[in-house]
């Protein structure tokens, strides 16, 4: 079944209140994130505060004239400064949250079908690229092996050691053209390779 993508906004809040994606802490966090309304932290608050984009993915079932929420994803920006802490501010694309409903996890039935999670990942990566970003980053909990494997499958690598909350920072370089159009690359203006070698 084909995914139908809808940009998320506050008027859709009531439609996603039954969304469930698992019982682990990060699943509960994702559920709460998409279901919460300001002043509680969540998707709507992140749209308003950080200008994030959030998408819902539905499948339409014609027989019952019903639609099902398969999952959601989001895309924002992170700022960083070179040299820290007071250097020039740069931006890179960032996936704040992404989840697939329990009901739609795993491979759908039928030949030549993709995991919904892969379709969702491909959509976010495509949008980040279309927005002109050259780097896409996210963080994943160190115990969330399944998500980590999924991100690695889509070209992300762990580049940061885990922080105090047990999160690993991952990055995907979106293309190999160093001076193509779009937004300036964070890395082009970032540390020189000679600096990096001193790690």
């Amino acid at each position, binding site marked *: 079944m084909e995914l139908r993508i809808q940009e998320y906004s506050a008027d859709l809040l009531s439609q996603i209140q039954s969304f469930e994606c698992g019982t682990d802490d990060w699943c*509960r966090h994702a559920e709460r994130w998409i279901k919460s309304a300001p*002043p509680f932290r969540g998707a709507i608050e992140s749209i308003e505060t950080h200008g994030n984009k959030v998408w819902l993915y539905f499948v339409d079932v014609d027989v019952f004239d019903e639609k099902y929420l398969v999952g959601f994803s989001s895309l924002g920006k992170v700022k*960083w400064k070179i040299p*820290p802490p007071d250097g020039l501010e740069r931006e890179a694309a960032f996936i704040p949250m992404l989840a697939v409903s329990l009901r739609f996890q795993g491979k759908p039935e039928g030949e030549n079908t993709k995991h919904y999670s892969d379709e969702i990942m491909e959509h976010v990566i495509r949008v980040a690229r279309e927005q002109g970003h050259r780097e896409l980053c996210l*963080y994943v909990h160190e115990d969330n092996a399944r998500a980590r494997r999924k991100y690695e499958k889509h070209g992300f690598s762990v580049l940061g050691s885990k922080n105090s909350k047990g999160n690993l920072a991952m990055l995907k370089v979106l293309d190999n053209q160093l001076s193509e159009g779009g937004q300036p690359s964070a890395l082009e203006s970032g540390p020189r390779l000679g600096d990096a070698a001193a790690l």
Partner: protein
Amino acid sequence: MNDLLDQDYSLKLAKKHVEEYSKQDSIKALHNEAMECRDCEDWLEIGLEAFRWLKQADQTIRQAAVEGFAVSSSAPNSIATLYRAWLRPCDRAEGLAKEQIGRGFRLKNLTEFREACEFVRQQVRIIDLEDALDEAQQGEVFDEVFWQRAALKRSDQSDSSR
């Protein structure tokens, strides 16, 4: 003769009283333990009652926000603070409960209390994850070392594509 009988009777009476006193001592000890168990149950019940109120407040306020009602901007922090505060006495309550179990008592509300503890612990872990997401959005998860490694990665990829 009567004197001897009286003495014997007196001793028997005294013995009976001493035995009664000793028995009362162990009964008192048992009573105290039972009371301690009841106190523990009462304490767990107070915790459970607080938990029910807190959970209800959390759900009600969240639902109000979803339905578009005005919610105080300080509500999320207040709820987070209350969850953390609720957890604070839990280890001591659990220790006391274990003592009662060790004495052979059964606490009628212990299972429910433990479920409440696990629920609140998860709420606190989720709050920590929310903090972590805030930090990430501020760029704090992606530090200088991360970007230096990213620069190397881009350099490797562009070299291999040439």
